[in-house]
């Protein structure tokens, strides 16, 4: 899965917790919480949506890596690749 595809999935997950968000205006390197006014419950729902969609386990300790759109894409791209390698081994 490419970074662009992951980015699309991340935006879909975000729209499920913040339906009023305008994905086009999101700044990639600015905190999602600050841009979208999402709370802990929204963030948990966001992580659950990514977990279900991408079939990756996201450790709670890694949550800080998901604070920006760029951070999400980088972390999830690596996680999906790691998961794919594990399955093919």
């Amino acid at each position, binding site marked *: 899965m490419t970074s662009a595809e992951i980015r699309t999935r991340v935006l879909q997950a975000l*729209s499920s917790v913040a339906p009023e968000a305008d994905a086009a205006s999101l700044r990639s390197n600015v905190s999602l919480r600050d841009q979208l006014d999402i709370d*802990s*419950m929204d963030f*948990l*729902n966001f992580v659950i949506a990514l*977990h*279900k969609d991408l079939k990756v386990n996201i450790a*709670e300790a890694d949550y800080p890596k998901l604070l920006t759109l760029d951070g999400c894409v980088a972390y999830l791209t690596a996680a999906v690749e790691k998961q794919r390698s594990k399955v093919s081994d």
Partner: protein
Amino acid sequence: MADFVMPKLGADMSAGTLIAWHKKPGDSVRRGDIIADVETDKGVIEVEIFTTGTIESLVIQPGQKVPVGTVLARVSESTGAAPAVAPTAPVQPPIRRELPAVTAPPSAAMPSAEVSRLPISPSARRLARELGVDPAKVKGTGPGGAITREDIQQAATTKAPPLPADRQSRFRQAIAAAMSRSNREIPHYYLSNTINMHRAMTWLAEENAKREVPDRLIYGVLLLKAVALALRDVPELNAVWNGERVVPNSAIHVGVAVSLRQGGLIAPALHDTDKRSLSDLMKDFRDLVSRARSGSLRSSELSDPTITVSSMGEQGVESAFGVIYPPQVAIVGFGKLVERPWSEAGQIVSRPVITSTLSADHRVSDGHRGGLFLSAVDRLLQEPEKL
């Protein structure tokens, strides 16, 4: 014969508009069934019945706005059924609504023959009804295009449209009326305490490391449970003031203040908060917030809170002193979780701390008892594994 009446869904509600019936004459109903949708200033609420029996007649038709206490339907009770819980407010003649016809939301629709042929499991269909989602409008992502529970949840989170300006204005007016009444009539007193959350957060991190992503807890649910258990120590804070005396509540239903994306806030109840496991509470907390934001709350969730908890930490606030929501007699606030220097065994260490606050009705309790309550919340959070 029992009367099913327009319920009072909050101190500020004087009337509601019947939007749709979920039952028709001759249908059997059980205690807890959702049988109607009612629109209040806070949105469309699914109204439960507290009688088991058969619908005899529907007295009020969709689109009519009627005062609280007005008979909406008549129900013949089954033998041995629990008695009807009907407010005792005087019944006034219904006011016929002369506004354009109200269109029932998808949630109000009974499953049609077309809907029943959709590839959807009974569980997902039930969830759709609970969340007010029309399955016919949901694209299934399961095997063969089957509609899954996740599809329904996804649809529920995206379906809430912005409130129209007039609804938003009425919503604001309802909040204004309740808060003005509170400040006018209730002699508030305020207390605060700083809680060391080191143990709670350490336990939570260890606990969540063992859990699958969808089963994880957030620290807010620990706070809710601690408040509920602390109320057992100071039960006078879990009561109502009826104008002359305190009436204690036998159950603890914590109302959780939820900010709505369309603006405003609502504080539905997490029923029996003190008796439930953290996992159970977390599951219902997620569901409650989701339904509050998608406009699918049930009547009992609005009428039952016995105390309110408001957490403002997400907004960067360090301490929040709330305004009591009458007829409740207390509101608990939590601020932001922050790292602060903390003295422990003669050493200065960095610890995550949170400020808890209590706004309470001085007619019902005093500062001494309020202080005991906040201390109990603190004590309970030092032993998170026991929550």
